[in-house]
């Protein structure tokens, strides 16, 4: 993959994650409606973004550590197998969803929630093929991915809060989990093949 292609992939995956209501924009809208002010939507987006970045960052660090200790081929095959396995699990158990109870949340709660939600979805894993391409640029990948996610998340959250209203959920909340599972498997297959 070309450099430009890698970076575009990182940004596009960020946008894809940002679009998923389960990743946080919907929670931000819910909190904004609870407090009846749009600023509450915005202030929820920061910890959600941070939690997502930490989850993706953890995967990047793990892959980086793997790059230092494992033969490249082993690492690629291992990461690829993990991704395919996770994707297949999500296809087979589409109902399995992250369990969390609580909507009275502070900054720390939201960071933790977002970290767990992103990790449970394998958000960072999905980036594995690109991370392994650009092992020296891990932090840049996290920054670009997260920035793209935040932009999309903020745009969707504010448009839904101000203009569209939540009725849109009933018509437009397509089951992204299936696409997500397929994306994980595709990334898994791509991981050992790219170079």
């Amino acid at each position: 993959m070309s450099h430009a292609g890698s970076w575009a992939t990182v940004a596009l995956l960020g946008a894809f994650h940002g679009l998923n209501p389960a990743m946080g924009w919907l929670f931000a809208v819910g909190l904004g409606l609870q407090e009846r002010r749009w600023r509450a939507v915005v202030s929820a987006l920061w910890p959600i973004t941070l939690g997502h970045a930490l989850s993706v960052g953890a995967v990047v660090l793990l892959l980086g550590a793997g790059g230092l200790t494992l033969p490249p081929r082993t690492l690629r095959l291992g990461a690829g197998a993990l991704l395919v396995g996770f994707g297949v699990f999500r296809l087979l158990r589409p109902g399995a969803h992250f369990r969390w109870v609580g909507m009275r949340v502070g900054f720390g709660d939201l960071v933790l929630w977002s970290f767990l939600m992103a990790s449970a979805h394998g958000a960072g894993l999905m980036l594995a093929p690109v991370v392994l391409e650009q092992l020296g640029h891990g932090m840049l990948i996290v920054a670009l991915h997260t920035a793209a996610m935040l932009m999309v998340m903020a745009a969707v959250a504010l448009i839904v809060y101000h203009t569209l209203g939540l009725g849109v959920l009933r018509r437009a909340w397509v089951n992204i989990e299936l696409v997500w599972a397929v994306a994980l498997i595709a990334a898994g297959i791509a991981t050992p093949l790219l170079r």
Partner: protein
Amino acid sequence: MSTATSPTLLPDPTFYPSPRLAAQAPPEKLAYVVTIRPEGSGRPDALAVVDVDPASREYGRIVGRLEMPNVGDELHHFGWNACSSALCPYAPHPHVERRFLIVPGLRSSRIYVVDTKPDPRRPHIVKVFEPDEVARKTGYTRPHTVHCGPEGIYLTALGNREGKGPGGVFLLDHDTFEIKGAWERDRGPQYLAYDAWWHLTQDVMLTSEWGTPDLVESGLIPQALMEKRYGHQIHVWDLRRRKHVKALSVGDDDQMVLELRPAHDPNKSYGFVGVVISLKDLSSSVWLWHRTDGDWAIEKVLEIPAEPADPELLPPALKPFSAVPPLVTDIDLSIDDRFLYVSCWGTGEMRQYDVRDPFHPKLTGSVHLGGIVRHTAHPKSGPLNGGPQMVEVSRDGKRVYFTNSLYIPWDVQFYPEGIKGWMVKLDVKPEGGISVNPDFFLEFTDERPHQVRLQGGDASSDSYCFP
């Protein structure tokens, strides 16, 4: 037998983010009603499917029924596997179907999982939890209320295997329907149980108090009532940490605190609960719990007095009092939180109150049907017995359905001649006021209807995370 279903592409069309949107739902076409056989009949209870579509040729008739495979379950309350709470933003899983009814037997402690698809008129059992499994995995028996929550299906239970307390709450997994165990981490002083519901977005659960199985299963025990041993509190819980927060007492002269109806608007912090009887004057009451300045409190907002009556017309238990107690045994709040319906099972009256100001309910409507003394008839019937009991309100708030039996061992104490089952429908005027729908009168033979659930949801089955 399978409970596995494929995920859907879009959210179930019966899920609504907010009560405001749910109120725009299309009118229901079917109602599910559990029916109970009196003791000794040797026949099982059933789930009846009632056609409630006025355009249908079978309107007002039973168009399907599922007989249970066992005798003596005493089906009572029941609920959906999934509802609008699946849209809640902290654990969203909206691509599931509102499809299965979780139907507990209050007496047998057996729990049926009933599939209402593919043909909603031909529901069928896909899973049965035997009483022993329920007791072994939860420590509880006599399952009562069912609510679909974001982390699973919540059920309440009256007591334990020995028929004592504590009663409490337990969870079912909403994918596999496996029993996950008792819910509480710290129950504090809570011992009695009955109903449960919540302020979902405020991480608050509420539970109410009836009595332990040994206080209710052989009938209402007058001595226990005089000793004030039935419930007189509601409990506030931290839903997230599963901890008891506070007990709110209505005073122990007021006995049996039953149905909890929190405001549907998630930004409101109040709700209504009905109390069956006061030892002072046999009145019933409705109380409002509310959070003011961060602290929970409860106060009486409605009192319905007993009505003087000729002892000749009263069952033995009531003769000494020369009065009929109203016996408020169910209440229901419309989805827009505007109207509260109050069932007076003893006096045979259904009342409607405007509760937009929840502290000051205004009586806006009343109809009489049945009753211990009155036996008021429906336009399509002769004199009726039993009285307004389990009440359900359509999502748009325009129609109200109710049935007339309470609980087999108690029915006979207040209606010793034997309750003849019926289900009726009320029409609601937009600005308040109710009237008996003259065309809808469903009579049951040899069985008694209890709770009604409307296809697609109703005013007491869904919780919403968005205002």
